[in-house]
């Protein structure tokens, strides 16, 4: 399996503060890679540097054999897309769903805009009646589906997921995660998933990197994590915390 993403010694600074201190990882083609950590551990910053939204980084990043520079080409943005955390903030408030979905197609000069949008809505299980609505007329889960459809419009190979379910209801979270898993199966996508929720990451990803203070402290498989075969104390602490949070519900039921 060839590596789709290769990150070596990535450093990101915000002024004096070093938010990411030399992070390295590899993601194979068609693999799901998870990044977990507490807020402030630098996991989202890694994703932003990878996506090209934050140009102030140093180190080596390679996607599909191409070295990345701070400025990305249009072709890069066709192949790499991102789904944002907050579905209430990631859709333009004055544009219809149709307009939001057509934008990537127009920028990349793709044909069959009409059919592609209809197909895109189908793929994320949104009704065609949603097409000419505004984002504020949709629920959080529906909005996140629109955001996912938008990310897939340009037929990317890599999708970066920045806490894609953390702003959603628990019941909707599972739906969106299953949708993401189905889409990956169908399209052979490569995912990098950032989350603070171990359960979400373990559900979707086989390999998980745990971040603390801007560094990856441990890379672990989902099975090892579930079984509690952790090596680093921080991983164990995070795992215990998520088990503790789930336990009271279990005992109450």
């Amino acid at each position: 399996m060839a590596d789709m993403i290769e990150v070596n010694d990535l450093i990101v600074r915000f002024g004096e503060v070093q938010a990411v201190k030399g992070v390295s990882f590899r993601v194979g083609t068609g693999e799901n890679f998870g990044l977990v950590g507490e807020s402030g551990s630098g996991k989202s910053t890694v994703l932003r540097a990878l996506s090209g939204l934050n140009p102030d980084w140093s180190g080596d990043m390679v996607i599909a054999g191409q070295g990345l520079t701070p400025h990305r080409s249009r072709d890069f943005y066709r192949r790499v897309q991102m789904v944002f955390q907050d579905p209430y903030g990631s859709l333009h408030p004055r544009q219809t769903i149709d307009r939001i979905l057509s934008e990537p197609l127009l920028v990349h000069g793709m044909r069959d805009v009409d059919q592609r949008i209809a197909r895109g809505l189908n793929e994320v299980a949104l009704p065609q009646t949603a097409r000419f609505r505004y984002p504020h007329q949709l629920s959080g889960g529906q909005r996140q589906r629109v955001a996912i459809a938008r990310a897939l419009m340009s037929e990317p190979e890599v999708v970066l997921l920045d806490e894609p379910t953390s702003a959603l209801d628990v019941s909707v979270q599972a739906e969106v995660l299953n949708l993401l898993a189905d889409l990956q199966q169908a399209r052979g996508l490569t995912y990098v998933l950032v989350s603070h929720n171990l359960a979400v990451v373990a559900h979707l990803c086989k390999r998980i990197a745990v971040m603390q203070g801007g560094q990856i402290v441990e890379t672990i498989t989902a099975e090892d994590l579930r079984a509690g075969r952790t090596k680093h104390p921080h991983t164990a602490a995070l795992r215990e915390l998520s088990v503790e949070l789930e336990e009271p519900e279990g005992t109450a039921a």
Partner: protein
Amino acid sequence: MTALSTYLSRDWLLSETPSSRTHAAWVRRYRGWLQFRGNGLAMVGLITVIVMIVASLAAPLLAFQDPSAQDLAGRLAPPSAAHWFGTDELGRDIYARILYGGRVTLGMVVAVVLLVAPIGLAVGCIAGYFGGIVDRALMRLTDVFLAFPRLVLALAFVAALKPGITSAVIAIALTAWPPYARLARAETLTVRNTDYIAAVRMTGARSGRIILRHIVPLCVSSVIVRVTLDMSGIILTAAALGFLGMGAQPPLPEWGTMIASSRAYILEQWWVPTIPGIAIFIASLAFNLLGDGMRDVLDPRQR
């Protein structure tokens, strides 16, 4: 015929599931209109503005006299059936001059707005979106213009050129754009770092496209509101320039000029300067009411 009536039906305009982009846009406009219509004062403003504009455009039909026909025998006549608003110091019909003057005054206002709003929007959005050195350069330029007292700069500018309507319009525009640039910049700064703009950047679109298609539409509504509220200020500046002899030149009827040329008669023949004054007052007030109503509908922060 059937097609037209379905398009104009209330159901079509209030549809929850629009069938095309244009349809969706019309639904949004109609909802805005319903909200605006609920505001009584704003409707008064809107109707007054429409009546004034229509009356100015239809001046040749509504005025019974030539606005520059002099009748020295009947000068400074009080309002009567023949002269509804009386006559001025040269015996010209004030009613006719108010109607024709509306063309000049309101025309100047429209010209200023058409010049000012695009410039302010462009400068503000570009400065706000790019930030850094572009922002600093454009905003210091804005500050320079903002530092001059409005009327004084306009006066100096008109005095340097030749007094007249064109110079007055350019002079007012020159002093009126900085607030729009600041407004558009502030608005751009609030949306620049949002996820939806980040998502647009992730399509690989060029900066020009992002600004024009995604940022400007968000700034336009607050600029429209500001423009409507500023209309009264522009009317007053135009009238002030006219009053000081730097705007429209006699015998062209312009409300400010009309007050200026008849100010000597304010005690004995009060209606001569008062009536154009009332016209200015009503126009300013109407635009202000309209602007307030528009803000309620358009301002995204009040949603």
